[in-house]
């Protein structure tokens, strides 16, 4: 504990006390640091029971020193009683930026129009962009704590669903002070409103054997190109990027982002016989058949005698023992990751890695949920030029979105309205059957340009 400065010891001890109910610690702060009396919170008290860590206990610990939090608990308890929310928005920001702060003013007023819980009448949030993969050192986290204890409520959420570190609860006056300190540490505000939003990338290359590109580099390269569109909201609506290192899509990017960048590979699944045999000894034939072979969505897997494994270039095989192998027909494999997940190490993504890009994922509002659609089936993402191509593509997509989407229309809705083919044409991307589940199922299309299109495709093939 010696490495902690006095203030931190105090915080630590107060926590212990709060948890264990032990007596007042000798390093207890002076009386004048004590906050005002707590409101009764019978509903919230219920959420201090049970084994899962309680945010209510945390709020109460903060309320021991802050009138601010005493009143926040008061308002939250009121919501629990009436089952109504009591915050409204407004305009609060930091100098130089048009977004990134979520303003909250209380609407719980008495008969004279005065806030019932006046010390928590303003409770704004700062959205701060996390480092890729959400890694931190404790020095940084402690600095966050110190500055937020000073300027804010002392409540920080790691993280919001878009990925932001959410510093929850500051007065209008303190928002700028807190931001200045956060910004001096090398952190910057995220997006809100009709803007490019904060992004997330998976742990990927830092610790995951499935990683197919440098997610952190892609995340930073792309997002840091759009800082103006993050900090000064002026798009038709929000635009979200997410970066997942492989088709497991740990960032849920297909469902949640306007542009989803997902790692994949073009060559054969790599194999490691030592790990294959080790897996087979541990799991046996039943698991291999039921959990691996039978679950391949495209029937690309077969169990073979080693001597019968096909020799074609698109076949890979991992030994199970000295006689048998699992054979993969990589032409049939859709890179779903299932067998690679189950037999990690024995099977691994290939070496010719890159990314698939999907566009248009979003949640319900307004036309219903949309999953992203494949727009770029494969591109390499290794050299500086590759990364430039990625940002260029992102830039052109956002430009097109900015010019063509209706107000409050997401990219996916825009594409739904104008048709994928129109979007591709505008973006100068060649159509590809990998973009569809199946060709059209109705005749309602005018095809008098057919011969021209065929001629164009032929000419391109010849030129290549």
């Amino acid at each position, binding site marked *: 504990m010696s490495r902690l400065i006095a203030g*931190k010891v105090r*915080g*630590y001890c107060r*926590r212990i006390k709060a948890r264990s109910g032990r007596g007042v610690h000798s390093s207890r702060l002076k009386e004048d640091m004590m906050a005002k009396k707590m409101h009764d919170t019978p*509903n919230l008290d219920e*959420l201090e029971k049970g084994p*899962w*860590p309680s*945010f*209510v206990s*945390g*709020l109460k610990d*903060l309320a021991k020193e802050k009138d601010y939090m005493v009143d926040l608990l008061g308002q*939250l308890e009121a919501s*629990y009683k009436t*089952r*109504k*929310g*009591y915050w409204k*928005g407004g305009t609060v920001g*930091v100098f130089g930026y048009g977004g990134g702060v979520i303003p*909250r003013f209380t609407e719980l007023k008495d008969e004279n129009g005065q806030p019932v819980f006046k010390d928590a009448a303003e409770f704004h949030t700062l959205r701060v962009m996390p*480092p890729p993969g*959400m*890694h*931190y*050192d*404790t*020095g940084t*986290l*402690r600095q966050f704590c110190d500055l937020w*204890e000073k300027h804010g409520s002392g*409540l*920080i*959420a790691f*993280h919001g669903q878009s*990925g932001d570190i959410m510093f*929850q609860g500051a007065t209008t006056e303190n928002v700028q002070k807190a931001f*200045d300190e956060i910004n001096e540490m*090398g952190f*910057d505000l995220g997006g809100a409103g009709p803007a490019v939003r904060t992004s997330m990338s998976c742990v990927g290359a830092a*610790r*995951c*054997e499935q990683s197919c590109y440098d997610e952190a580099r892609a995340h*930073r390269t792309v997002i*840091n190109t759009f800082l*103006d569109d993050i900090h000064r909201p002026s798009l038709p609506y929000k635009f979200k990027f997410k970066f997942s290192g492989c088709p497991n899509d*740990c960032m*849920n990017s297909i469902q949640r982002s306007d542009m989803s960048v997902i790692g994949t590979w073009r060559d054969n699944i790599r194999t490691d016989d030592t*790990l294959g045999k080790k897996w087979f000894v541990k799991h046996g034939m039943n*698991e291999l058949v*039921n959990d691996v072979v039978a679950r391949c969505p495209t029937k690309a897997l077969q169990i073979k005698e080693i001597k019968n494994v096909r020799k074609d270039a698109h076949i890979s095989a991992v030994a199970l023992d000295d006689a048998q192998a699992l054979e993969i027909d990589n032409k049939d494999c859709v890179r*779903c*990751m*299932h067998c690679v997940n189950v037999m*990690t190490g024995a099977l691994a993504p290939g070496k010719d890695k890159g990314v698939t890009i999907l566009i248009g994922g979003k*949640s*319900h509002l307004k036309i219903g*949920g949309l999953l992203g659609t494949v727009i770029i089936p494969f591109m390499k993402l290794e050299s500086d030029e590759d990364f430039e191509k990625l940002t260029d593509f992102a830039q052109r997509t956002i430009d097109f979105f900015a010019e063509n989407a209706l*107000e409050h229309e997401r990219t996916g809705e825009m594409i739904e309205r104008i048709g994928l083919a129109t979007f591709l044409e505008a973006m100068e991307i060649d159509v590809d059957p990998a973009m569809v589940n199946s060709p059209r199922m109705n005749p309602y299309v005018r095809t008098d340009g057919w011969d021209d299109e065929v001629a164009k495709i032929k000419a391109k093939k010849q030129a290549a």
Partner: protein
Amino acid sequence: MNAPAQMRRPKETGVPDNKKYLHPTLAKNYGNWRYHDRPRPGVLHHVAHGGDEVWSVRAGTQRQMDVYTIRKLCDIADQFAEGRVRFTIRSNIEFIVADEKKVAPLIAALEEAGFPVGGTGNSVTMIAHTQGWLHCDIPGTDASGVVKALMDELYDEFKREEMPNRVHLSTSCCEINCGGQADLAIIVQHTKPPVINHELVANVCERPTVVARCPVAAIRPAMVNGKPSLEIDESKCMCCGACYPPCPPMQINDPEYSKLAIWVGGKNSNARGKPTFMKMVASGLPNNAPRWPEVAEVVKRILMVYKEDGRPWERMADWIDRIGWPRFFEKTGLPFTKYLIDDWTGSRANLNASTHIRF
């Protein structure tokens, strides 16, 4: 007070580099990992091509954390994990150690401090959640409270790996669904149209914007008591609440009529089948703060049937694909009502156009 001349200009630094935050062994083996396994629930063991090994110990947090809790987690990281931590997308915290001998004492320290170790592999991991009454301006219910109440109930499943495959849950305090897609989601479902405060509409709302926001074109401008306001065609309105954020006088939240619905079968990954959206399977549950027992009962019922019946590696969606929806409703005892038949755009694709029926 704050004269513009003295204002500090922001440094538009954007997303910070993560290299200096990486555990040294992660930094050294960046992009060079070979495989992993899970020696016990809550622990991942990764092996690099060069032979380096790390153990990541995962623990649950309340997400909404006070500074004392964060400092306590920092103390643990300083003691065991080279002063480094990372967070998962579901607000779990991970401590990484390069020495296997540190794993057991690290787990002990975390549990001693009140943080459950688990959430890996085929466990029920932490619920992705939203803002709720604590901080949103449109919530029908709370977020962190619902999650706390449910995680208390699912505590053992977080600490074990006994489900067929991983289980991701989410909660959302309005139909916008910030919580996102999940194997099982709990989402507010309003059942009555907004109640309009006509006094305020003209001053507070941009009427054309609000009219444009409605997915079913149920809103039109109207004069009410001599004031410009809006009116709702209640026979069209499906109570989604989309008009409420741009126009707070159109109050959609109601202590009684804002209910909770349960959705299942959202699958994020491409593993086996393609990603899927979740489907509504129950609604009408009361918004019963502070512990939402009716919701917890249904959630646990679905999860326990899935646990019993699912085969290894079947996500919720895969399991339902195999057993079929009739059996899902039969096994869970949930009523299949007419409201669960989709009638939104594209809904024909959700109807059974075959004789494929399991009897």
